[in-house]
């Protein structure tokens, strides 16, 4: 009986951590648990949450995508440029920007799968390239002055629920659906578990990689659109360093960096932990730099715990 409880606890350790954090922050500042603040937390993490779906797929197949931040930036700049400088309508601009995001993801897929460049290098290169292109496109200055209806995506509410939170929830649902109900999900786990065996089981591993990096681009692009709408202006540094926060959420959520193992539910917890930590520390007036230290330590603890568990179960 005791063993079962311990096993359950270990499996849901991430949720226990989340609960502990909520308790601690509430004790320190009761305002933390107000409905208002909780929605604020959810809204703050919505972009991480959206981008984390694609990153989850990528890490599931033992890959990495460092271009997420740059895709967010270029989608910001591109969408704004199309709307403001070229007079495109909202829908067209958003569609074209998302298409660009998918294209960049596909380029990553090609570099990694067809050419065979290690994912960390390939996506690092595209990160640099598209960060640069974003600067070139906007000339280093912010672009603003959109159609007021565009604000709805990032700033609107449905009842008490912020629109970005709804988008995030839909993305989580879609991610979970892909992983659990479609054959692509089975393929992702298979490729992540053992690429060679997957190929020999009839999976076209190369195509799956294209698909996954394209999806990663798409979800990053979506996060970019939400961000643009929230800030209402496109900054050439909008997504700088975003990939690391997204990777942190995913890894914190128990997706194994060596591939083959992980669930969307864990990633949701990972995203919420980052949100709660950030928000709670702001409420407690913890400085930005201290926050960075704390987040780094939390990442080490989470992954360290997970790794030790696995080591023990093997040994």
């Amino acid at each position, binding site marked *: 009986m005791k063993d079962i409880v311990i096993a359950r606890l270990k499996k849901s350790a991430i949720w226990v951590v989340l609960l502990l954090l909520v308790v601690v922050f509430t004790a320190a500042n009761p305002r933390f648990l107000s409905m208002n603040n909780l929605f604020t937390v959810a809204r703050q993490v919505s972009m991480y949450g959206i981008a984390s779906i694609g990153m989850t797929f990528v890490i599931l197949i033992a890959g990495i995508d460092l271009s997420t931040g740059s895709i967010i930036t270029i989608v910001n700049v591109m969408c704004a440029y199309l709307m403001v400088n070229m007079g495109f309508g909202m829908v067209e601009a958003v569609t074209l920007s998302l298409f660009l995001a998918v294209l960049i993801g596909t380029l990553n897929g090609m570099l990694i799968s067809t050419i065979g460049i290690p994912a960390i290098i390939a996506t690092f290169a595209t990160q640099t390239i598209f960060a640069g292109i974003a600067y070139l496109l906007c000339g280093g200055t912010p672009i603003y002055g959109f159609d007021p209806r565009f604000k709805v995506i990032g700033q609107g509410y449905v009842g008490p629920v912020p629109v970005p939170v709804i988008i995030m929830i839909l993305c989580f649902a879609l991610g979970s659906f892909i992983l659990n109900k479609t054959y692509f999900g089975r393929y992702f786990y298979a490729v992540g578990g053992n690429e060679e065996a997957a190929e020999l089981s009839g999976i*076209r591993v190369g195509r799956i990689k294209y698909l996954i990096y394209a999806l990663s681009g798409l979800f990053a692009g979506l996060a970019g659109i939400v961000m643009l709408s929230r800030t209402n202006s496109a900054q050439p540094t909008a997504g700088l360093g975003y990939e690391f926060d997204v990777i942190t959420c995913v890894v914190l959520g128990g997706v194994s960096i060596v591939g083959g193992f992980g669930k969307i539910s864990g990633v949701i917890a990972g995203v919420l932990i980052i949100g709660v930590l950030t928000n709670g520390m702001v409420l407690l007036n913890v400085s930005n730099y201290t926050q960075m230290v704390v987040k780094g330590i939390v990442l080490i603890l989470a992954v360290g715990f997970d790794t030790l568990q696995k080591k023990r179960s093997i040994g």
Partner: protein
Amino acid sequence: MSEDFVLQLKNIRKEYPGVTALKNVSLEIKEGEILGLIGENGAGKSTLIKTCSGAVIPTSGKIIVGGKEHTHMSPQLARENGIAIIYQEFNNVRELSAAENLFLGNPIRKGIVIDRKAMEREAEKAFAQLNINIDPKALVGDLTVGYQQMIEIAKAIQQDAKVLIMDEPSAPLTNAEVDSLYKVCELLKSKGVSIIYISHKLEEIFRLSSRIVVLRDGEYIDTLQTAESNVDELIRLMVGRELKDTFPPRPPAEGEPEVFFEARNVSGNGNKKVNLKIHKGEVLGLGGLVGAGRTELAQMIFGAVHKTEGEFFLKGKEINPKSPREAIDLGIALVPEDRKRHGALLGVSVKNNINMPIYKLISKFSVINSSKESVTTEKYRQELLIKTPTIHQEVKNLSGGNQQKVILGKWLAANSELIILDEPTRGIDVGAKFEIYKLINTLVENGKTVLLISSEMEELMGMSDRIIVFCEGRITGELKKEEFEQHLILKMASDVQEDEE
């Protein structure tokens, strides 16, 4: 008496779950002696020598070296006692020079910096001692396999090895290189180094050794004085017993044989101009030594590796599968040799493994029909008697035999017609082996065609309707059921022909 021996293994026994790899094997070697060690694949030679290096801990038995008894070795203890093994895979760093490799892990230093000059000087001396001509500055990656092996040997001698164990040292070498290997072995012998020489090639054993130890199925069979023995006797001892009734009977194929699959002049992946026909409903066995080109042919048929020349025909139509997916869609299946690395998806459930090749077929708008998924799984779980608590169990938790059944189930679900089995019973215990054999018969009864690759002679002869033997990428012989004889197959398998080019 025992002080004459530099190394003695006494009653070494090694048990793995479900398998006894070594059954009370004893062996001793004198100073300055070359001892031949022979046996078929799986006879336990490798396991035995690994007990000497500490890579394998014996279940029971004693290792006597340097006048002391040990229950097992450790890599360090082996080194201290001068036991060195030259494996088939070399432990070298291709990007470093010959000299640096010679002193790998133990470089000559001047303070904290490496003294390259001194190492090169010492290396030159070491190579000269063995009469081998290697530039100490040459990068190991640029040297031929033969020279790389010499560096391994020199390294062992440099570390004061008294007993040198060589596992199939001649396998990767050209004839000229084998000659230098002989010379080095004889030189070392004259210097008092003892050598345990493992080889499939009996001529080498006769040329070098003074005594020969024969193993079979993990058992010690005999020790022979080389001068008083001959090839036939050795083969008889290696092969041993008559075929026992360990193979389920199968009625012979009926009617006119219809060619199901054909390879015409196929080259590539190490194979040269391979021609073979597989008839519908037969089990065609491929015999030969490890690395003879059988697995390589299977990879090409399955589309995992591309052929460079020649054609494949399936049911009379030319096929050219460029990926496993294409081969699977044509009805070809491969149960690979390395079950854990290539065969099963270990971290994935039984259900997902079995459905993996057909997921697209049982999905509508990408969404899996989960009732079909479960029905298929249950069907093959029952048909193949897969022992698993639930179909959701991860395959890594199943026994080897059951893992193999899951892989077979996968191909039956995919409706494969030509099933290539590459060493299907490797690492599987005896009971499960019999079940796999019965399954092979069921496959044939259900109209499937089987290409069986096996290095276990008994299995090959017991299960095949016809055997084709490979040697170094070529077909060296074909035997009909009534012509099956172990020594014939062995002879064909080690039929080393000089390259005509």
